[in-house]
């Protein structure tokens, strides 16, 4: 089990900016897949590197199975931590063969296993990732996907307590990425190894994880199971980052929020009082688009701007006033551009949350996580 408490790390870059990870706390239970999700520069890789011991935090404690590996006055160096790590660039050693790459962690350990034992463990690890038979091949001769598996095999050969992965799929092309996603999930569930995963891709996060922590500007803004994050995002940022959403800001009033020239009926999240700024976050699949008004509550008229046929659905963009609403319709629906349509926001899917000011596609320029 991994426990992180109150982690804080600051960098000064050449450009004078200050990168920080501030007050990060989370726990990962044994065998669970935990993902740090966020945009570039949010601090997720820094957090992972602190867990690995590649960065030394200024404050906070990291405990692995109740033993402190990083804390005030104590810091276990990376090589002494029982971890396996897959880097974004894979970091395969080009001057070694596949076998030597995977055997390296065994050979440098405090009590290296015998030659026969090493052979067995390496072959086992390679079999896990589907690279058996390629032992003698020089590592640079592997394809991108194979190198990624090699990195994984190397990380797992010692059967470490915890597996750390830093955006391992981002260098693969789309199809390969999908395949690896599936294999990775299956592998982790099968081995039951505690895993921490870093990514900016919410699809990966949702697919792979037991729990996700969404990070923004060095802090965890929400943590929970994928379902919970999707259904009940705590802020606009989380809503936008996990899944797609239409943002409807307004002022909170009795029974809903004031927006679109009227009142949109919705539930109110805890702590939202009348007069405060509220935000309605709507998922496209929950918005109904009709060619005729249906007379239901929360129905608004608008103009259809885009109706794109995507095979399993119609992706629509409807303009209501100065709001652009993303919606979906059944693929057979007959809709034409610039047609007047009626959009319903079903009450059961409407909950207003506090407005954190976040808007989609209004990203400020942030620094790269990897800069030191």
């Amino acid at each position, binding site marked *: 089990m991994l426990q992180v408490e109150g982690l804080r790390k600051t960098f000064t870059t050449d450009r004078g900016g200050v990168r920080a990870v501030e007050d990060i706390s989370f726990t990962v239970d044994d065998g669970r897949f935990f993902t740090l999700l966020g945009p570039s520069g949010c601090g997720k890789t820094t957090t992972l590197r602190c867990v*690995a*011991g*590649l960065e030394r935090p200024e404050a906070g404690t990291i405990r692995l199975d109740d033993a402190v590996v990083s804390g005030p006055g104590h810091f276990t*160096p*990376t*090589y*002494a931590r029982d*971890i*396996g*790590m897959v*880097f*974004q*660039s894979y*970091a395969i*050693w*080009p*001057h070694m063969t596949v076998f030597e790459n995977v055997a*390296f*962690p065994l050979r*440098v*350990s405090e009590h290296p296993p015998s030659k026969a034992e090493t052979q067995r463990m390496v072959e086992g690890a390679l079999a896990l990732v589907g690279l058996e038979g390629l032992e003698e091949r020089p590592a640079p001769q592997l394809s991108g996907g194979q190198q990624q598996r090699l*990195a994984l095999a*190397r*990380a797992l050969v*010692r059967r470490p307590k915890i597996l*750390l992965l830093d955006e391992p799929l981002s260098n693969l092309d789309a199809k390969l990425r999908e395949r690896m996603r599936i294999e990775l999930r299956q592998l982790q569930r099968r081995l039951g190894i505690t895993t921490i995963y870093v990514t900016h891709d919410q699809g990966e996060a949702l697919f792979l994880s037991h729990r996700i922590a969404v990070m923004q500007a060095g802090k965890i803004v929400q943590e929970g199971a994928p379902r919970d994050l999707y259904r009940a995002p705590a802020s606009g940022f989380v809503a936008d980052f996990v899944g797609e959403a239409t943002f409807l800001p307004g002022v909170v009033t009795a029974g809903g929020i004031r927006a679109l020239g009227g009142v949109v009926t919705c539930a109110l999240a805890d702590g939202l009082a009348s007069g405060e700024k509220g935000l309605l976050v709507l998922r496209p699949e929950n918005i109904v688009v009709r060619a005729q008004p249906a007379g239901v509550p929360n129905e608004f008229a608008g103009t259809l701007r885009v109706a794109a046929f995507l095979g399993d659905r119609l992706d629509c963009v409807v303009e209501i006033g100065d709001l652009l609403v993303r919606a979906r319709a059944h693929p057979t629906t007959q809709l034409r551009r610039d047609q007047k349509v009626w959009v319903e926001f079903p009450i059961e899917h409407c909950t207003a949350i506090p407005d954190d000011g976040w808007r989609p596609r209004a990203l400020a320029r942030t620094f790269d996580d990897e800069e030191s």
Partner: protein
Amino acid sequence: MAATTVARRAGIRLPAWRADILIVGAAALLLGYLTIVPLAMLLLGSLSSGSSALDFRFTLQNFQRVLTDQASLELLANSVMYGFGSALLAFAIGTGVAWAVERSDVPGRSIWYGLALVPLIVPGIVHTIAWLFLLSPEIGWINTPLKALFGFSLSVYSLPGMIWIEGLHTAPLAFVLMSAAFRTMDPSLEEAAATSRADPWKTFRRITLPLLLPTAASVLLILFVRAIEGFEVPAIIGLPGRIYVYTSRIYTSLNQYPPNFGLSAAYGAILLFISVGGLLIHNRVTRGSERYATVTGKAYRPRRVELGRLRVIAIGALVSYAIVAIALPLLVLLYASFVRIYTVPSLETLGELTLRNYTFIATDELTRRALGNSLLLGAASATVVVALTAVIAWVTIRTRLPGRGVLDFLAFVPITIPGIVLGISLLWVYFTIPIRIYGTLWILLVAYVTRYLPYGIRSASGGIVQIHRELEEAAAAAGARWWPTFTQVLLPLLRPALIGAWVYIFIISLRELGSSILLYSADSVVLAVRIFDLRDSGNYTTIAALSVFLIVLLVILVAILQRLGGRTVREA
């Protein structure tokens, strides 16, 4: 660590010592000792009237003499004229050849490129001796027909003579630097001029030339510093001709008797000051030139100027250069090596050719010792430099240790120290510190290692920067401590860069004269010094034979080691 585990269980707290701290600490100490101590001693020596820093008696007399002496102004003037003259000449020749090879359509470009680099193999002393043969006032190869036909001779024992020899010798360096500049120029800037209807000459004058100015200025500065630091030409040509520059003055103030060590140190300090100043200005100039940056790193095929009828002239010029710079000196050395006493060639001398000189150098004890010493020193200094700078470069690039910038700086400092200044500095060090290595190979090793540190650090840094940091982090994540990471992951990947540096240092160490001349003894004589010494005994023909031998040796070494180095690169 079994020991620390036991200790910990017993409740004793041991300080954690790690291989990396120990090795880095040792490397840093060694670096500091090699670079700071000699310079400090030089300064102390120049301010002392005693001849050991332990015997320090403060005096400004040395500097007074160096700066205000009537002769000193002349010395400064000579040095500056010599430096600039050689720099300009080298620049003119080098740029001309570079332009022809890189920017014109003269045929046989790869041949000219190779030929232009050949003189780099020839050591300075050999080159100077060859030109001595060619331009000796009465009996030089060039002067004899000149006298016969025109009644005058060009005396090599003059400032123009010195400038000619040094300029010719340094021209390949100018060639290398300028051809790199030409190669990476963005031709679209010139093409834009062409589409604006400017003819080739106008384009050259108004676009090419101004763009090249920063590079040209910096190259000129490097050439200047090179020239005033040189020892061979001032010693072999300048001394007999009574033209003194700083390097020869350092040498002579030691060789008068009683030897004046303090004065030598003062001259050394002045020369160092000039050298450092020159390089600082150079850095300032090149930094500012980033505004003009046309070096984009992309592989452009540069536009070539069509010479048309001028092609014949260009080829003629290149051929003349090849003859004057390469063929003539080699020929005269070959000739001189096969005669008994050096005289102007004639039919009768050609009939009296002998192998006497070669048998001499094959059997002469001192020469054989010199060869052995040179090879041994070359290998040893290359190894030490490569090992030391690999560690220093790693510290500078991979760690966040405070003061690592200082380490990097120190490793580069020796490039500003002229060879003979290092020699006099080391004399002072070992007059003071009771480590008895003067006159042995060890002091030469110290000198060589110090001189070649910058080359090592440049290679090692360049190599490490190209190796992704994550490769080492992955090793740490796999459980490897510093030493296995350094030796099993970093070093194998760094090997091509390290081998390249090793080979380069080995080869250039064979030509070293400036430091060796002050620090050697009969036991530790090296090749360049042997040639210098033989000249003292008037054995010119033997010198010629030894020079030919040295050139052949270097050519073979370069060929073999490049072949080896290339293969290793491919393997990695």
